[in-house]
């Protein structure tokens, strides 16, 4: 990383990445609902319409399948669309386009075409917006060959990974946690990218490994801080990308600590935590002192009432308690 760093929010980091990549490459353009005049409902795209005009920052009708459909066609014919789907809950409206078209075209055609397309979307509960606006459906896309799945947790990663995603020649779905937009962190000043497919050992430790995705980094850190006071040293690995999955880093850590907890905000069952647990178990079986533990979102539609919603999302308390039972 560059030595010149500033402290900015994830929102601004993403906004910067969009500016820089649009500046760098004429083929990059944005499409989505209210991303132009309004600057996006999460204000992530502000200023871009003013700078690049309505041909490169396109306000669309409310039509998720159509938006992604157009983006696929544009990507096949030389452009590099960056599409915003406001909530990942609504990627379900475009999932045929994403998985049957975007993800498969290259392979089905024997490599004749590429679909360099980025879908930015939001994930995560905690906003008290109930079951249709709070899902984290990244496991769905991770299941599908032909697409990459990125979910950063810090401003620096968000910027560097989005830039990589935009330069990637494949469809990439980029999950932004909606509660994290105001999260601040240091971001290098100059040009940089972060490679897709590399997990980040955020903190090292010998006693147990916590593998987390997206905003789950923060309760993990909180739990780790508390555990540290008790002399328990946790290694924290922020996945950053789930497809491709940086299996090696995970297995190495598991081999070192022998205790692993995976934390993710998708529904726990048949979700991301299962695959990670399975891969680690396959790769580090003889080193594990106990099964890989998992903490996903509860297997219920996300409820509205704050007290209920909070029960369904993995918390620092839960992480703390699970680790405690593991290392004791």
């Amino acid at each position, binding site marked *: 990383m560059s030595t010149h760093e500033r402290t900015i929010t994830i929102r601004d980091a993403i906004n910067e990445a969009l500016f820089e990549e649009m500046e760098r490459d004429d083929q990059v353009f944005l499409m989505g609902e209210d991303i132009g005049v309004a600057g996006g409902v999460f204000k992530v795209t502000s200023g871009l319409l003013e700078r690049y005009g309505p041909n490169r920052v396109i306000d669309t009708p409310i039509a998720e399948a159509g938006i992604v459909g157009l983006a696929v066609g544009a990507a096949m014919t030389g452009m590099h669309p960056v599409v915003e789907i406001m909530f990942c809950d609504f990627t379900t409206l475009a999932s045929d386009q994403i998985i049957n078209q975007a993800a498969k075209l290259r392979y089905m055609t024997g490599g004749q075409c590429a679909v360099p397309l980025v879908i930015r979307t939001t994930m995560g509960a905690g906003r008290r917006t109930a079951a249709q606006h709070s899902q984290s459906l990244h496991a769905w896309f991770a299941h599908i060959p032909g697409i990459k799945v990125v979910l950063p947790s810090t401003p620096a990663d968000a910027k560097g990974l989005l830039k990589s995603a935009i330069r990637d020649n494949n469809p990439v779905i980029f999950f932004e946690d909606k509660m994290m937009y105001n999260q601040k962190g240091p971001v290098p000043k100059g040009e940089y990218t972060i490679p897709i497919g590399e997990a980040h050992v955020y903190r090292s430790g010998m006693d147990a490994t916590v593998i987390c995705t997206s905003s789950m980094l923060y309760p993990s850190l909180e739990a780790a801080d508390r555990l540290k006071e008790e002399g328990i040293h946790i290694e924290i690995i922020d996945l950053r990308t789930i497809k491709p999955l940086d299996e090696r880093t995970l297995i190495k850590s598991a081999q070192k600590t022998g205790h692993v907890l995976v934390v993710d905000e998708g529904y726990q069952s048949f979700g991301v935590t299962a695959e990670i647990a399975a891969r680690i178990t396959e790769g580090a079986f003889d080193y594990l002192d106990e099964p890989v533990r998992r903490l996903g979102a509860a297997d219920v539609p996300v409820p*509205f009432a704050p007290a209920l919603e909070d029960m369904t999302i993995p918390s620092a308390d839960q992480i703390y308690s699970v680790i405690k039972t593991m290392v004791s």
Partner: protein
Amino acid sequence: MTTRIEETRSSTGKTTELSEDLLLDMYKRMVTIRKFEEAVHDVYSRGVMPGLAHLYIGMEAVAVGVCVTLKGTDTITSTHRGHGHLLAKGGDPQRMFAELLGKKSGYNHGKGGSMHIVDMSLGILGANGVVGGGLGIATGAALSAKLTGAERVSVAFFGDGALNEGIYYEVSNMAALFKLPVIYVMENNQYGEYTPSNKSTAGTGPARAEAMGIPAMTVDGNDVLAVYRAALWAAERARTGEGPSFIECQTYRWLGHHMGDQGDTYGYRNSDEIERWKKKGPIKRLKAYLLKEKDIRVEVLEEIDQKVQMEIDNAVEYAKSALQADRSEVFQDVYA
């Protein structure tokens, strides 16, 4: 078949046939919505209400004009901006407000919040957080009415923005093919979030409906009587087996898209426009009609206003003091 808006705009003059009771009922329902939404505005602004709230202020005539033509067994589906539809169809302000505050005695036990309120006993098949999400449900409810021979009408309220989701097209095509008793009520409040309707919609809703053989009409959605007459026409068609109808109601939302953007920093409309529409406000308009054309005394209306205000105040008080959603229910009702 499309009636241009100009033709219906002045229609309040010709409605001598409506009883005073009905007119006052409409007035009361509209005031109920207005005061409910004002209460939401107030409570939300104090930071007491979690989540999102999309207010219906300015659009009251649409929900009320349609719902007064419906029977208890008729069904509606609503939108993210659902409070108005629910109240117009008879929803209980107490249980609604309790739901908005995430309380156990809320309609949905606090699990749904503003965008998901349902009252099956009143035929309210739900607000919906997915734009266009009610269209399939409403058309399916009409299908079940047809299959069981129930003389039930199904209404789908949806926005000008929702018109561009493919689902509308898929289900309305089937409604036309199967002659289903459904009414598509498009609330054209000129914007979907921050995008003007003419930037998101090529052609018009009514033209699109007619292209599928669905008779369509555009009415002044701030004129409750115009909406009412259109709904009567459509409900009659539905009840007599003539199939679906489409009503576009031209109206306007006075406030932001949701409570979180009241300042209107999104630069998509100007205050002149808002003021112009406020002058044409649906409640003001009905009130003027009742006073001038129907010789109703102002005290009668004031009494209604006060009663409604009390009812809403009570609902808010009730909701505030109600028990929080019950944590022991968090894993219940995932499956039946």
